[in-house]
């Protein structure tokens, strides 16, 4: 049967992708951030999962305000790289895993998560930057990817508690899949940042540190953070951290932290990375 072996929480700042695409990762500005990514890349290469479920938000790329799905699963064979307004990132296309993706769609909907299903969609930096961060610049991505989009652009996003429960339902669906697959789940976005208004540039290291500390051992307390608290404490775009709860919910209750990295700034954002492993998978 398929099983979830690990979870990765990872910010998806577009400028991180640009820095990689332009070969600027060794500059004084970027080096401290990228140095901290190296151990995660080694860990992931060693883990060599078969499939990654990547929880992210689309940023006016595949979807506009025309249709706003709260939760969406990509079931395609391939996902092209989106043009977000400055040409597509020069990274490989993303290969899907339609069989597992459809299993997830059916199981989640019957479990009362009303997923939108996408047979065609491009993927933007929300998905490709975490891949770049954790895989570097390979000619092809080393595993299949199932995109799971969460709306965080049009208020209100789903609550953290709802996202955590979705994670639990994902774990159940994966366990029921008959093929022997090792799956990782990415929760992306965050950490504290505000991209808009006079208050742009807000960073809250204290909030972020507490969030990272509790994510492993006390995730339920974090699911109680309201949208307003995220926006006030971690910036209007800090609310993206609800997506980390999907990842955490998909991992075992006693999952263990194996790595973390936190760096300010990545452009306007506090960049966080955390890796959790299921003990049952060890």
């Amino acid at each position, binding site marked *: 049967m398929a099983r979830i072996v690990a979870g990765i929480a990872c910010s998806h700042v577009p400028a991180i992708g640009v820095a990689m695409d332009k070969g600027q990762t060794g500059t004084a500005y970027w080096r401290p951030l990228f140095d901290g990514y190296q151990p995660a890349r080694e860990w992931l290469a060693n883990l060599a999962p078969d499939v990654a479920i990547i929880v992210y938000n689309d940023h*006016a790329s595949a979807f*506009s*305000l025309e249709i706003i799905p709260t939760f969406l699963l990509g079931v395609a064979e391939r996902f092209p790289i989106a043009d977000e307004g400055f040409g597509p990132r020069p990274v490989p296309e993303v290969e899907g895993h339609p069989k597992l993706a459809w299993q997830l769609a059916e199981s989640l909907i019957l479990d009362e998560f009303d997923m939108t299903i996408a047979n065609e969609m491009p993927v933007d930096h929300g998905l490709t930057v975490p891949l770049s961060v954790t895989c570097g610049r390979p000619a092809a991505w080393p595993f299949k990817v199932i995109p799971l989009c969460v709306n965080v652009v049009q208020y209100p996003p789903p609550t953290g508690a709802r996202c955590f429960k979705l994670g639990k339902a994902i774990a159940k669906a994966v366990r029921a899949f008959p093929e022997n697959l090792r799956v990782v789940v990415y929760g992306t976005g965050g950490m*504290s940042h505000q991209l*808009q*208004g006079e208050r742009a540039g807000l960073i809250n290291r204290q909030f972020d540190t507490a969030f990272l500390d509790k994510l492993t051992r006390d995730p339920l307390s974090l699911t109680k953070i309201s*949208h307003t608290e995220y926006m006030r404490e971690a910036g209007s775009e800090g609310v993206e951290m609800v997506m980390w709860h999907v990842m955490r919910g998909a991992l075992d209750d006693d999952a263990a932290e194996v790595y973390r990295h936190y760096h300010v700034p990545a452009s306007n954002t506090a960049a966080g990375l955390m890796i959790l492993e299921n003990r049952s998978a060890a």
Partner: protein
Amino acid sequence: MTQTRDYDNIPGTYVYDSERGRIGYALNMFCMSLNKADNRKAFKSDEAVYLDRFKLTAEQRRTVLERDWLGMLKVGGNIYYTIKIAFCDGLTFQDVAGMMSGVSKETYAKMMLAGGRSPDGNRYKPAAAAAEKE
């Protein structure tokens, strides 16, 4: 706003909620069109003519033509959409963030390198902060 929200007292923040979604749709869909290279070219060659394709209010048109980034948010612009105009201009997210917060690019970059804008003193609008203390 049609109803009071508990986030209304956060200073310098324009939450893209139902009210802004209602008034900002056409403006944001214009921005969305800039995901296509041909449209970016058409917009840059004659901005006013290109904007005629969309049903923007006079104020929305003004904010776009004058690159009034903060003004766009006030008339329903969503930052993930309006930033596409900035990309067209060759600007970065950080450039626009600096302009919205009313400081020079250098000052903003320096603030970010020093750890970003502190939440201390930035959680509540002044009036709300006073009310909070009472």
